[in-house]
């Protein structure tokens, strides 16, 4: 869809949406948001980009295959799930740093877990949508 208007709008919307998604991710523990919604919004940003510029271009933009985000995300989530066992706690126990960090707030395994969720969601949504889109192009 070769629409200048959409393309230009996307140029502005993409960073906004990504920023917004990170915002949602980080605040999830205190306000509505979190890894899921954050990831969904981030992936929507790329989906929008692919509508405007074509999937191939979006793939170029993100450089990596979205599929490879899935093991990364799963890995991050799984490790943050598994980490507490090294400290003698049951799996998934929340571990927190003592100090608060500005902007983000408390840093803990839960946050990393959410980060994993975030990556997985992006990877999943983009894998699904881009595979379909590219498949269509091939057909």
């Amino acid at each position, binding site marked *: 869809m070769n629409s200048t208007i959409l393309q230009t709008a996307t140029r502005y919307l993409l960073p906004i949406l990504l920023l917004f998604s990170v915002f949602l991710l980080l605040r999830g523990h205190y306000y509505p948001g979190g890894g*899921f919604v954050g990831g969904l919004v981030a992936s929507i940003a790329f989906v929008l980009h692919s509508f405007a510029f074509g999937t191939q271009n979006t793939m170029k933009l993100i450089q990596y295959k979205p599929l490879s985000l899935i093991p990364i995300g799963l890995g991050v989530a799984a490790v943050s799930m598994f980490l507490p066992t090294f400290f003698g706690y049951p799996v998934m126990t929340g571990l927190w740093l003592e100090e608060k960090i500005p902007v983000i707030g408390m840093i803990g395994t839960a946050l990393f877990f959410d980060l994993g969720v975030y990556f997985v969601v992006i990877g999943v949504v983009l894998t699904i949508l881009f*595979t*379909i889109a590219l498949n269509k192009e091939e057909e």
Partner: protein
Amino acid sequence: MELILVLLIGILYAAGIYLILRRSMVKLLLGIMLLGNGTNILIFLLGNIIKGKPPIIDPDLKVFTDIYADPIPQALILTAIVISFGLTSFAIVLLKRVYALLGTDDLDDLNTPEEEDI
């Protein structure tokens, strides 16, 4: 208000069932989605539903001082929504593949006699 939601649950389930009994695979999918929504509303309703009090602790406080909506059904539904998204997207793509291979979305046509190629 609960009564209306109860009615809504019934309608969602009924519509879902009606749709999955159709021959079109698209309708099957839509039916599944409606059923999922019905289930979500059901879980939602059967917890404690409370208006305008999200289960978010006030920034200045450490615990709730007021009543608040039951967070458990919300968490459950959230999980369920995401899971059904996964299932639905897979199903949609399956639909696409079936259509590409058989040239139909008529479920009655999914009966090619036994094939050996596996």
